[in-house]
């Protein structure tokens, strides 16, 4: 009995030590993050340029910039779980706007999908197409975002297919997608989804990964 108690006590102490190590590690990472933030604020403030499709009011005090890939599972996870709450509580209330910048890293279909969204944008349906892509996302590079499927999505949305095909087949937006990708990389984005949340004073904070709504709420409230 005594031996058992001793055993559990030692195991408990071991676990506490591990948690303490993890906490110190977290604090250390926090310090690194602070230094990185200073670097960013001094050197490359994220200026959200015009011309990127956005939902929400242009005058909203907060801009959320999402760097994403249409084939990325984590982006879909964020799209399904966090995005609706942000739209409900911040976009629809005029406090924030949401912009999407492509970072198509997961294969050729990602680039095609990104280009297709701009062809849909030519017909004023960027966000409808964007939503369709995430709603029907399949396994990475399994063909769900092949050229044929992208045409089907456009057809199902009721887009003018002649105009869409002309745009898509001419690779009209290939360079724009490449530019977006370069822009994301130059902003220090190394994974998708990554979010940069900027307020009207230019203060910004980066969130990496499909983090829950509570994190976005805290960051947005701190920047408002």
């Amino acid at each position, binding site marked *: 009995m005594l*031996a058992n108690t*001793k*055993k559990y006590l*030692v*195991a408990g102490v*071991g*676990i506490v030590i*591990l948690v303490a190590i*993890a906490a110190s590690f*977290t604090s250390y*990472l*926090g310090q690194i*993050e602070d230094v990185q933030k200073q670097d960013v604020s001094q050197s490359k403030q994220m200026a959200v340029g015009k011309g990127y499709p956005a939902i929400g009011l242009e005058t909203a005090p907060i801009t959320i910039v999402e760097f994403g*890939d249409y*084939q*990325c*599972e*984590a*982006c879909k*996870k964020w799209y*399904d*779980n966090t995005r609706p709450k942000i739209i409900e509580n911040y976009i629809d209330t005029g406090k924030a706007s949401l912009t999407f910048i492509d970072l198509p*890293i*997961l*294969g050729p279909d990602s680039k095609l999908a990104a280009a297709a969204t701009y062809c849909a944008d030519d017909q004023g349906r960027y966000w409808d197409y964007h939503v369709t892509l995430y709603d029907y996302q399949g*396994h*990475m*590079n*399994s063909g769900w975002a092949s050229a044929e499927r992208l045409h089907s999505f456009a057809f199902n949305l009721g887009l003018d297919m002649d105009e869409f095909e002309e745009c898509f087949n001419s690779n009209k937006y290939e360079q724009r997608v490449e530019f977006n990708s370069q822009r994301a990389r130059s902003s220090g984005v*190394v*994974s*998708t*989804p990554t979010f940069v949340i900027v307020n009207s004073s230019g203060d910004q*904070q*980066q*969130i*990496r*990964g*499909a*983090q*829950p709504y*509570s*994190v976005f709420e*805290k*960051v947005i409230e701190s920047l408002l």
Partner: protein
Amino acid sequence: MQNSFNIIFSNYTYIVISAIISLGLLLPLSIVSEYLFLEPYVVFSVYVDTAFNFSLIVIISILAGIVVSMNIFRIRLVKKVRRIGSSITGTIIGASAGACSCGPIGFSIITTFGTTGSIASSFLTNYEIPLRLISIIILVLVLWTTLKAIPRECKIN
């Protein structure tokens, strides 16, 4: 087999080793698989649709902790190095398969290896659950053989 378990874990050192290994695997795997976030706040988040995947990581971490500590016991008992390294490495690769999609690790792989990296990343991501199940099977097999071997080795010694 029950006896082997009792022999090893009656010594609290092996419980501690097992806990350290399990947590040492679970924490990084949770971070790379994006269940645990450290920035900008420490947040743990498992959505309903990813709960099964996360439970596989937990099972793998616990099994790995038990298997490694049992084999440390065996090594000390028979003074011979047992080859479990490959199974543990395979297990970790399987367990971290999901980290190879759009996270920083997947990004680095794709950036470094281009199309090949993209194909490898797709494979690891698309077969994440089967790979984790294979990892669990490997660990259960190693655990079973270890449990069978210990009483025999104890008698010899």
